[in-house]
């Protein structure tokens, strides 16, 4: 079966957009093919800085024939409707239609047979539409045609389109179409500098090979492999080790069609700058890798660059040029770092009075004061020294005003730590300057030093409560202040450090410290708690745990101790894995269902203690007795926070519950007995509420 080769040759596509664009191209073309009844065998897409390419193999040469039915007017319907039907379906007369009967009467039905078209014609129709509507994150117009409305938008000027279609054994055909004056053909171009001539291509196999001969490696993964392997070898050969950096590797591979890896060096004096700053300088500005000495684990004065050409002088000029650029950059970084060291962190703080954190939430200075107060309050709850936590909160944001952080925002926090240590702060205080931002995401490390934990929690809770107070909550995909991440961070800080604190109380205290007064201040802490519950569910789901159990625990009300909630959820999860758990859950659900139905019927609830005098069967008495015992035992266990023991107690309910449903008819003829039995069922529900609301658990 035939294959499709498509290449869109353009000016340089931003590196960060290439992978998604290749994927979009594959997805859009193949989806459309399938929708057109052209089921293919395989597809693969590629990107380089100057081209997007797609190969789809095993496409049928023709679409299958299509039969469709179209419903027309009622038999005996008005003539205008009949004429319209004939026109729309292409039937000559009603004799060609068949009649079908349904509930509303007899209708004309036209059978339309559509012969399948050649796949190449279908491609000629769908490809230009996909190109014109391609989902680039940002696109532009260019050239003389941009003066007219409706001109093509592409990521950068598009120059050529190669589109061929045909079976392996034959000369393929060009899929003929044009987009904005660009006619399809089978001509592409090699490397911009090393092989710029036109290349005629037939199908994917010769296309990829000819490109390679013309110094273009089409597959981004192949380019990455080359860069990575060469960089490792080059550094290893000199007794060093490459500092691996996947994100940088992805980017660099999108900046070259023919990677040539080389090593340069810089003056040793710059090694006095913190490693992270050297790395940020070299990586962000120059897109080069840094190199470490395996003996010390520290950076060496080397860097690895990836050029796009095999220079005729072997690369001497390129290496020298890159060194010349890196030198003043590092010189600036060193100057910034040394300048920063001359000013104490606290001396920077007055400037925060001029910097607005958020229009409605005041200045950064006000925010820092709030975090200080909250950190001092949280400190005893997490085992941190109050004075240290206050000091850390006082200094933690100061590095935002340093030169180095101004230049490289990604080293915020870390520089705070360096500068705090340099001015003789306590090690925990210095650590908190860095760690109070953590954890930044699900993969980030959670700090354990109590001082860091106190400041990190204070920072996150102040943020959450603040934005809640001004009603800037995340909605749908919009979360501009990263509040979901803040909440998840707080959850991980609390649960992974096994901290006991009442979120409601902390939130209420944070709220009291704000200068804004939200209208529904009363509701805010519980609203926020519900948000935490949602985040907790998401987190548990991601860990593969049962998130519905979170609902079962939150439904008890008054639960704002995250650690206890998580412990309960864990114990409940374990219990529900057992036979006792599963059967008890079934029994409780059955009781709840019956109660639900009867409550509706009688329009009343069956609260209150059952009357022991009305028990007529042994199973009733046994259940009543068990409920009493289990209630006491489970409550005692919960009071001791021994949720496993509470669950074991629950398990004792299972035999009497099973026996009750086996032998006892709830809806007794005697109204009083019925009422009493319903009250007993209600007691099962209430007994189990010592640990969770089982009715919220999904089967």
């Amino acid at each position, binding site marked *: 079966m035939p294959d499709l080769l498509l290449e869109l040759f353009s*000016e*340089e596509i*931003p*590196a*960060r957009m290439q992978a998604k664009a290749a994927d979009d191209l594959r997805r859009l073309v193949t989806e459309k093919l399938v929708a057109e009844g052209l089921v293919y065998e395989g597809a693969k897409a590629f990107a380089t*800085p100057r081209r997007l390419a797609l190969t789809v193999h095993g496409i049928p040469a023709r679409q299958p024939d299509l039969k469709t039915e179209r419903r027309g007017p009622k038999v005996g319907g008005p003539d205008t409707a009949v004429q319209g039907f004939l026109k729309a379906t292409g039937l000559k007369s009603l004799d060609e239609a068949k009649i079908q009967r349904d509930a509303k009467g007899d209708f004309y039905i036209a059978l339309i047979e559509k012969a399948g078209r050649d796949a190449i014609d279908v491609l000629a129709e769908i490809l230009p539409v996909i190109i014109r509507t391609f989902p680039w994150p*940002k*696109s*532009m*117009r*260019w*050239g*003389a*045609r*941009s*003066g*007219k409305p409706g001109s093509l938008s592409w*990521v*950068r*000027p598009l*120059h050529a389109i190669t589109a061929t279609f045909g079976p392996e054994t034959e000369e393929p055909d060009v899929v003929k179409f044009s987009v904005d004056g660009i006619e399809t053909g089978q001509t592409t171009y090699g490397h911009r*500098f090393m092989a710029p001539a036109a290349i005629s291509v037939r199908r994917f196999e010769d296309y990829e090979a000819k490109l390679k001969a013309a110094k273009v490696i089409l597959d981004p993964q192949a380019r990455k492999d080359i860069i990575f392997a060469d960089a490792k070898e080059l550094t290893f050969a000199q007794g060093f080790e490459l500092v691996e950096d996947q994100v940088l590797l992805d980017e660099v591979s999108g*900046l*070259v069609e023919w990677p040539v890896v080389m090593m340069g060096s810089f003056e040793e004096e710059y090694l006095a700058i913190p490693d992270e700053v050297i790395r940020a300088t070299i990586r962000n500005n*120059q*897109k*080069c890798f840094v190199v470490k000495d395996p003996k010390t684990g520290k950076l060496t004065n080397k860097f690895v*660059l990836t*050029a*796009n*050409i095999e*220079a*005729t*002088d072997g690369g*001497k*000029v*390129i290496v*020298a*040029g*890159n060194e*010349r*650029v*890196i*030198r*003043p950059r590092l010189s600036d970084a060193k100057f910034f770092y040394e300048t920063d060291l001359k000013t104490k962190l606290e001396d920077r703080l007055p400037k925060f009075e*001029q*910097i*607005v954190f958020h229009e409605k939430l005041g200045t950064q200075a006000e925010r820092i004061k709030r975090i200080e107060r909250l950190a001092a309050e949280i400190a005893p709850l997490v085992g941190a020294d109050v004075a240290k936590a206050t000091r850390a909160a006082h200094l933690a944001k100061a590095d935002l005003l340093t030169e180095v952080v101004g230049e490289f925002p990604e080293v915020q926090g870390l520089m705070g730590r360096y500068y705090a240590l340099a001015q003789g702060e306590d090690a925990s205080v210095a650590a908190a300057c860095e760690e109070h931002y953590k954890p930044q995401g699900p993969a980030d490390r959670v700090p354990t030093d109590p001082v860091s934990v106190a400041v990190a929690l204070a920072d996150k809770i102040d943020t959450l409560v603040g934005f809640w107070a001004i009603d800037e909550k995340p909605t749908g995909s919009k979360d501009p202040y990263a509040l979901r991440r803040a909440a998840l961070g707080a959850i991980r800080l609390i649960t992974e450090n096994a901290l006991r604190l009442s979120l409601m109380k902390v939130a209420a205290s944070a709220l009291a410290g704000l200068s804004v007064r939200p209208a529904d201040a009363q509701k805010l802490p519980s609203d926020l708690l519900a948000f935490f519950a949602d985040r907790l569910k998401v987190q548990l789901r991601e860990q593969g745990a049962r998130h519905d159990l979170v609902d079962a625990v939150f439904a008890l009300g008054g639960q704002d101790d995250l650690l206890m909630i998580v412990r309960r959820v864990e114990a409940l999860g374990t219990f529900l894995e057992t036979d006792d758990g599963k059967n008890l859950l079934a029994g409780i659900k059955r009781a709840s269902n019956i109660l639900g139905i009867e409550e509706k019927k009688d329009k009343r609830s069956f609260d209150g203690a059952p009357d022991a005098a009305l028990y007529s069967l042994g199973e009733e008495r046994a259940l009543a007795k068990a409920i009493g015992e289990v209630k006491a035992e489970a409550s005692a266990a919960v009071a001791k926070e021994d949720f496993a023991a509470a669950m074991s107690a629950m398990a004792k309910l299972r035999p009497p519950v099973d026996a009750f449903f086996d032998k006892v008819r709830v809806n007794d003829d005697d109204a009083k007995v019925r009422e009493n039995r319903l009250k007993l069922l209600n007691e099962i529900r209430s007994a189990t509420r010592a640990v969770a609301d089982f009715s919220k658990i999904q089967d």
Partner: protein
Amino acid sequence: MDASLPAHMRPERSFQGFILALQRFWAEQGCVILQPYDMEMGAGTFHPATTLRALGPKPWNAAYVQPSRRPKDGRYGENPNRMQHYYQFQVIMKPSPPNLQELYLKSLAAIGIDSAVHDIRFVEDDWESPTLGAWGLGWECWCDGMEVSQFTYFQQVAGVECAPVAGELTYGLERLAMYVQGVDRVYDLNFNGRDGDAKVTYGDVFLQAEREYSKHNFEVADTAMLFEQFKMAEAACRKYLDAGWKDGKREAHLMSLPAYDQCIKASHVFNLLDARGVISVTERQSYIFRVRELAKACGEAWIHTEAGGAA
């Protein structure tokens, strides 16, 4: 590179030779070679030959050197490559020709940058000028890891959609010349290509000015006067724009260029105030907004002029 040039005129030997080589190259591509605009401005883009000429349907190809003033970048002549006054070489071609990238690469060859030994790259850089209400997509052009030019396809300027789109190239002249001459300090650039006593360096020409203007920009510039000048320029711009509408109807405009001069003025005065540190973060946004509103109104006026393509 032109081998027939005398040594002192060669782009790798002299700053002025370097500029002349670029001018000659772009003249050969059909550009009109303009002289710098006679007003203080932060970048070559502010020149009406770019800002206003980029608008409207008429073809326009121009190249020129523009002294660029960035008061905040002054370093009293002590930094090897940061200055409050430097040169940009600006090329604007409307509509953007299909081979603009190739032309750019040839222009590098004309100033002595050989693509067989240098690693030249087009790295994503989306350009935006909040003060001009302008944006475009393109790249920063790298030579051996150094940014040497800005390459932009204008999509919108002064709030007006570009139709057709113009291609804009901006070369940082000092930086490129330093690279080609192989010097690490801008003041060491050979300006006239001569040796010995006859040699004039960039420092000979500009070092004194860098020291004086840094002091002026950061310490002494009269802020009360500047605040007043900003207001006056803004009001004058509005006044000329209002008065320029022919017969008071918003159909044809007769005074977009004098009005735009006042917009340039306001922008530079704002930059000076900013360097003096008398504009707070929030006020800053509001000043930028005010300049942008002037630029947009001037753009609107320009497309109603004859040169702007009206009628």
